[in-house]
């Protein structure tokens, strides 16, 4: 007798860890540009969120009696941590970041069954918890005016961890550019001299570059960003014909400001919480684009992608059910 082997033979070359590492790599250009424009805050938040996420992931795996090392090295907790940190204001108090990561990893991910079983995008759950609990802190961003002195590393650390500043800084925070536009009657170009809020369009372009690389590598499904961006573009073009507020008239503004690019390539593309059929992914991403635009324009929050993603997460199972692909031989 010999051991019975089973077909198909061979181990796939792809791994979950490769996928997740690629996502981290694709986020890097945006993170570098972000840091160049807005200082050390984001990097500190990234470190803080990563450490918290890995520690909580390990604890939860242990409690759930799952193998710790294989799951910890799949990099999925890091992806959640990074996406969450990127969405947060860079000088947010440390405990808020920890709280958000805790909600993401413990509640949104592990209490729902861990990797692959969570119905809601963990990073967006963490973000939404902070946004509804601490709306003021969550909408305070670093000013973008010329001549503004960015806080240094030590200052950023002490602001984040102690809530105090050792050196003198002129005003630390401002509303998001989207908020500015929303509550201002001024025309957008006059406010900043640039398209989508100073510096933000460059960061958006960096997300776009990283996202295109992921799509090229086949790591993300291109249907999702394409459908989402098309929806945003078509919606704002439609708006151009219907309103006379010049701030809303430029589709490029909507594509390059706020969370559009990040959501299109890195958040809506989370396969676990997205619709899983091809047609379903078109519908799912279009739904996110549409809801986000509605919230952005008429809702109480400056940007709407977190809620749009969570709402469409809710709809993903029914979208799947209604878009069962036509199999071979079924006409």
């Amino acid at each position, binding site marked *: 007798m010999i051991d019975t082997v089973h077909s198909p033979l061979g181990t796939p070359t792809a*791994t*979950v860890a490769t996928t997740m590492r690629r996502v981290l790599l694709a986020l890097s250009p945006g993170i570098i540009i972000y840091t160049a424009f807005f200082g050390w805050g984001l990097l500190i938040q990234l470190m803080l969120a990563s450490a918290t996420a890995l520690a909580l992931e390990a604890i939860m795996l242990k409690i759930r009696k799952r193998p710790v090392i294989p799951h910890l090295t799949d990099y999925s907790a890091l992806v959640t941590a990074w996406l969450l940190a990127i969405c947060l204001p860079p000088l947010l108090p440390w405990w808020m970041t920890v709280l958000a990561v805790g909600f993401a990893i413990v509640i949104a991910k592990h209490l729902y069954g861990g990797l692959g079983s969570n119905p809601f995008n963990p990073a967006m759950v963490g973000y939404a918890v902070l946004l509804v609990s601490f709306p003021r802190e969550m909408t305070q961003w670093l000013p973008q005016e010329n001549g503004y002195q960015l806080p240094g590393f030590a200052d950023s650390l002490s602001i984040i961890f102690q809530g105090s500043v050792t050196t003198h800084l002129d005003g630390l925070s401002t509303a998001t550019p989207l908020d500015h536009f929303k509550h201002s009657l001024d025309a957008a170009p006059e406010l900043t001299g640039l398209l989508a809020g100073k510096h933000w369009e460059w960061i958006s372009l960096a997300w776009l570059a990283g996202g295109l690389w992921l799509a090229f590598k086949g790591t993300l499904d291109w249907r999702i960003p394409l459908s989402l961006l098309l929806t945003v573009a078509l919606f704002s073009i439609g708006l151009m014909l219907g309103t006379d507020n010049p701030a809303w008239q430029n589709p490029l503004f909507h594509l390059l400001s706020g969370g559009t690019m990040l959501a299109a390539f890195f958040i809506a593309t989370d396969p676990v919480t997205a619709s899983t059929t091809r047609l379903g992914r078109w519908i799912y991403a279009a739904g996110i684009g549409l809801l986000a635009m509605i919230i952005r324009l008429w809702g109480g929050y400056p940007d709407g992608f977190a809620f749009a993603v969570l709402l469409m997460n809710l709809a993903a199972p029914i979208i799947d059910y209604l878009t069962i692909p036509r199999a071979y031989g079924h006409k």
Partner: protein
Amino acid sequence: MKHPMQAGLALPGHRSISTELPVARAPVPAELIIPVAQHIGTPATPVVASGDHVKRGQLIAAAQGFVSANIHAPIDASVKAIEYRPVPHPSGLNGMCIVLEPDAGAEWPSPVPKAMDREIISACAPMDIKKKIRDAGIVGLGGATFPTSVKIKNGIDHHIDTLIINGCECEPWITCDEMLFRERPQHVIGGSCLIQQAIKADKRVLAIEEEESEAIDLLRDAIVDCGDPIHLEVLPTRYPTGSEKQLIQIVTDKEVPTHGLPADIGVAVYNAGTAAAVYRAVMFDEPLISRFVTVSGPGIKQPRVLEVLLGTPVKDLIEFCGGKTEDANGLIMGGAMMGLGLSTDEVPVTKGMNSILLTTPAMMQDTQGELPCIRCGACAEVCPSQLAPQQLLALIRAEDLEQAQRWNLEDCIECGCCNAVCPSHIPLSSYYRYAKSELRGQGMAKRKAQQSKQRYEFRNERLERAKREREEKMRKKKEALQAANKAKARAAMKEEAEAAEKEQDA
């Protein structure tokens, strides 16, 4: 090519290692083990007894019913026993076998002639061809082992637009059809002429993969020699091009309906090896008693293609090919993607065995690193049946087979492409295999229950009817009796009245 395959995989073919040497005839073994079930359908019934002497080509087990196939003695031999032996079957159970002991000095006959006589082929009548195929016990040699005569009958009953001879060996390592093309292209072409004549297809296509490059020119020459309008379709090497449904779509841009047959859309597909077997059966009256088998894989010392008498133990082939390497750890019948793992090399070569693969630990799927499904959909991108494997997995794990059917589980061809791309290293096709057999089981149980119900209802109705008939009879009898009594009474009254009248008269 009308519909290039988008899904599927480009896999390394590993062809060259087994095609360097010409085809050799495996020596006649000490014992031939011939299972009575080597085809889809009812097993054949032995028509010889232990101790009988049989001649090469003599019928030893006869087909039972329509979907079944004859089995013949591969060589002059005596019947040693009819008993249960290990057979290559997914169940791993032993099967009924006729064990033959070849006569001392019994050898392969001299090589069959290669040339093809077009005129003799043209003279064959369709019904004769069909009968000879049936008598010769030919089944689909690509591995499916469906009785060929049944397929021919289907082809005669339907209008066939395109006859496809399938020479695409898309599974890695398998090369027996390529070697058949290289050594006996005339047999394949001649066989295609005979099948064409039997089923009267409008067009004939010979499909082959571009990786079988050495065979292409030889086939082209054989087609020219034959003179028939046969279209040689050279397809890109992509797994699973050789799967019947996928090949039909690639060549004709038509899809076989989910519960239908290729004949329903006017297409018939025959494996190249089957065509060659048809040729030999009709032209030389030679039943199916041997076939080409690839012996390959990293676990064999001298990989090559052998011509083998059916019933030869697999271990004899391994020995003839120089034996196993030290790290050989397993044995697969068929290909690396869809083959059947064998638990012993004592099993014999059967009609459907196109390849024996000796594996090494390096080829094994790593099951340690399995992670949860992240629904990435890589499997859906490669699925040739356009399913959503990630959804099927979730539904099967939740034991919701009804919902899995809605997601077209039964259209899965178990090709294993999904396994090969899964970043979570989940053995997806094993789940589908399991769920499909589970559904079949349920279907059978359901059918059985329905049958019992029907029988019960029929019995009830029968009893009811009998009762009704009995009652009817009784009623009629009663009525008749009553009528008779009435008549009697009336007659008596009449008599009395007459008597009274007479009295009065008197």
